[in-house]
């Protein structure tokens, strides 16, 4: 059984408008490479120059933020659902959380 990957609206242009795609990787790190292979440009949107997930990109394995699991080393099992959700933030001034 493949894993299901939920793609957020800002990334739909990269997947041809598909909001749900399938993957076969067994870890988040592998999944990022798989996404880049199938949808070029995806990794740049999700990761920084060091290959780490961008601060304002949240990746969930089922209901859990992978930052509270094993990060990119988090294992994925058949039938799992991975959701990619860019943070939504801003405000009238410069808050501490918003200083990139």
């Amino acid at each position, binding site marked *: 059984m493949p894993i299901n990957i*939920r793609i*957020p*609206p*800002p990334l739909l242009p990269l997947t041809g408008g598909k*909001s749900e795609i399938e993957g076969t990787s067994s870890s988040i790190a592998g999944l990022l490479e798989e996404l880049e292979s199938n949808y070029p440009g995806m990794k740049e949107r999700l990761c920084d120059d060091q290959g780490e997930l961008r601060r*304002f990109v*949240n990746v*969930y394995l089922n*209901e859990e*933020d992978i930052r509270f699991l094993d990060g990119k080393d988090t294992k994925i099992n058949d039938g799992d659902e991975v*959701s990619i*959700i*860019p*943070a*939504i*933030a*801003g*405000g*009238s*001034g*410069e*808050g*501490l*959380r*918003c200083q*990139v």
Partner: protein
Amino acid sequence: MLHIPQSIIDEMTAHAMSLSPVECCGIMGGTTSGDDAHVTHIYPIKNEDHSIVSYFMDPKELLWVHKNMRSNKLDLLVIYHSHTHTQAYPSATDVRLAFYPDAHYMIVSLEVKDQPDIKAFRIVKGNINQDEFSVTTPSAS
């Protein structure tokens, strides 16, 4: 054109005023048909920053809202927040962190207390364009 029921505008405004001087934030979902988008749901979301100058939507609540909208076949139409001490115009922070080019960014300004000023914008690649929207009432819809 974006269409928003008066009741949802009222709920957003009440959300902003109840949290002031802290900024509020939330999402509106609805349906899109051609050039028209109709808001049907509002999702107030916890401001994890709990700040008077910034907001950061609680990631857990954001995940839940995305799933709820998907199960209800709703599009993410509006991302709203309040400016409790400044005008209803995107700040440099708002522009830098605008990751949803298809969304309408709505700002409720409480710069003049008890006279909320509400404006909507598109923010695409750093460019700000004010958006028109209509407020609908039950008798008019």
